[in-house]
């Protein structure tokens, strides 16, 4: 029961992904074809308002719901991994038309075949873990 709030936040996320149409394979193709502003608008608005949120939280030294100071984690400066891994993910994103969040949401829509894509993504993560020490970071 201690995690029930995360269930609620997840439901909100699933609804937003659905109603924004960010889960649509067609929207992702449209984005990579530069035929519409829609997806750029969604991501751009999330980034700009998110930057405002980060700024406000830092300026006001806001505490989290448990009363502890919020720790903003820095992303590791592994630029090779960001670029190479990012490119591999990008290849998969445009093929399946979904990033990880939308994969789960689509499964919830009843597209059971996307369950196989999720299993395959888990195997991809497993494979990364196995070869991690041999890859540039």
């Amino acid at each position: 029961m201690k995690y029930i709030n995360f269930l609620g936040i997840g439901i909100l996320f699933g609804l937003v992904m659905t109603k924004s149409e960010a889960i649509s394979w067609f929207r992702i193709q449209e984005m990579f074809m530069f035929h519409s502003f829609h997806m750029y608008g969604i991501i751009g608005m999330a980034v700009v308002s998110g930057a405002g949120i980060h700024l406000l939280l830092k300026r006001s030294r806001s505490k989290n719901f448990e009363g502890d100071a919020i720790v903003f984690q820095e992303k590791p400066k592994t630029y090779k991994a960001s670029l190479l891994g990012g490119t591999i993910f990008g290849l998969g994103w445009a093929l399946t038309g979904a990033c990880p969040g939308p994969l789960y949401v689509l499964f919830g829509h009843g597209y059971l075949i996307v369950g196989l894509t999720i299993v395959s993504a888990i195997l991809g993560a497993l494979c990364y873990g196995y070869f991690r020490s041999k890859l540039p970071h």
Partner: protein
Amino acid sequence: MLELIKGAWHWSISGLLISLVMLLLIKSGKRFGVSSSFKTICAIGGAGKKIDYFDYNWRSHYWLLIFILGSIIGGTIGSTLLANSNPVKISPQTVTSLKSLGINAPMNIEEGRGFLPEEIFSFSNLFSMNGFIIIILGGFLIGFGTRWAGGCTSGHAISGLSNLQLPSLVAVVGFFIGGLLSTHLILPLLF
């Protein structure tokens, strides 16, 4: 009002709500990053016994699986109680480009909801070349690539960029290099 909620939401509202999800997770002491779930699932499955990368206290990520369960339920609500009566309306240019590959975008709800090209994403198409590459290989690249890059659209493009993280900007450049290659070079080869 209900009709308004059932229809597609404007990009500005959608973008604001995504940052609200991020805010709620930060205030709950967590981070917004969906692709970590692939790592968590491997760790729960016992991968940490053989591979150090998965040897961590996955119980600290238990919340993420609950969040994902919620997003699955959100999807179910979005396709039932709050289903849109119109399919996703993409740009006519994209419709034409996809048609030239033989992929049909639904024009009305009888033809589909416009979330997935259903003739590609079907169990009967799974063992064709395009089906296998899109459904199976595509998923594998997502899992491998997001873990190598250390994040996906939520962790890098939204959380990372909005927290002014340079590695996230580099990752997003990578997302676009890969995405443009798939859409403009690989997809036309598959159809």
